[in-house]
């Protein structure tokens, strides 16, 4: 899926997965699509961003880096941080 999206974007054809999250459940063999909206309060791409460079990622910058470096998005979604349902 990532390869197909990449080829489409490089060619400028079709409808890319911008603003849409496609989930795939191999056991149930189901695809779901969740609409994603820009968050106006997003610290990076929101209306008054606080992240203007990569200093948050520097040693001791805390924030995004202070995490266990293993994992997967669905876990975060299940913890209530992101819109998982409603696809």
């Amino acid at each position, binding site marked *: 899926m990532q*390869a197909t999206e990449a080829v489409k974007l490089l060619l400028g054809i079709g409808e890319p997965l911008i603003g849409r999250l496609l989930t795939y459940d191999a056991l149930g063999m189901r695809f779901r699509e969740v609409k994603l909206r820009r968050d106006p309060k997003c610290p990076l791409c929101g209306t008054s961003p606080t992240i203007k460079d990569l200093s948050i990622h520097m040693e001791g910058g805390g924030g995004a880096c202070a995490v266990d470096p293993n994992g997967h998005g*669905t876990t975060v979604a299940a913890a209530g941080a992101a819109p998982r349902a409603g696809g």
Partner: protein
Amino acid sequence: MKTLKEMLAEARQVVPEEGPADLERRLKSGDPVVVIDVRDPDEYRDGHVEAATNISRGFLEFRIGTAVSDPSTPIVLYCQTGLRSVLAAKALRELGYTTVINLQGGYQKWVQSGLPVVREVPMTPDQIQRYSRHFLLAQVGDKGQRRLLRSRALLIGAGGLGSPTALYLAAAGVGTLGLMDGDVVDITNLQRQVLHTTADVGRPKVESGTRTIKALNPDTNVIALPMRITVDNVMDVIKDYDLVVDGSDNFETRYLVNDACYLAGKTNVHGSIFQFEGMATVFAPNEGPCYRCLYPTPPPPGLVPS
């Protein structure tokens, strides 16, 4: 009998003209516009505006229907200096195309304005055969294939996500693939990371990845980056690519790639998998949300399974 001068003057009365900067603005705005290079194929091959389709003046009335389905779509025509194309534009107006614009000064002025051009490098007989199924697809075709061959994609991670993506992009003829991974192949990787083989255990993933990609498609220029992506190298690495494919396996990297791609204006094709579940989306700066819109805060340590 009319003189050439009179014919041109007549055409100019009915055909609006726009300069190279106006065309550049139209192309950047993303509004629908069809650009047609009406010169002969050899002139087109020597250099043309990337967005342009080549329909020689002599075939214009016959082939315009396949290039433009809606007669109200703005069409910009150009030739070398703007003379052939103004006559061509008048002919299209007479066919019922309502918004036909002549590129003032033609290709020559476009080049003099310092705007980008592309040159067609002839495809080898092998390439013509290899990509023949792409040529049959209207949305790809010869032009799309050339575009893919000129494209540069960066794969962050040569693991479970990066492996199949790298293989498909190489097979499709994406010209340059950056392959970035600091790990060596472990036997436990082989059950899913299809770029690597049993003989590669213990060797850098970018090394086995490069070999597999080159074996699949020798056209692919693979740039092996045997290192982890870090805050110190990310901006320098991504600047050389049209597109980033994030196939990383940890949150730290995903936030870093997200932030760097947004700041550098690069589109990020994001994917993740966990056990039997996978997800994919595209983060395009200023066109849609980013990873932080989706996951504003990283998960607390310990919550996340490995």
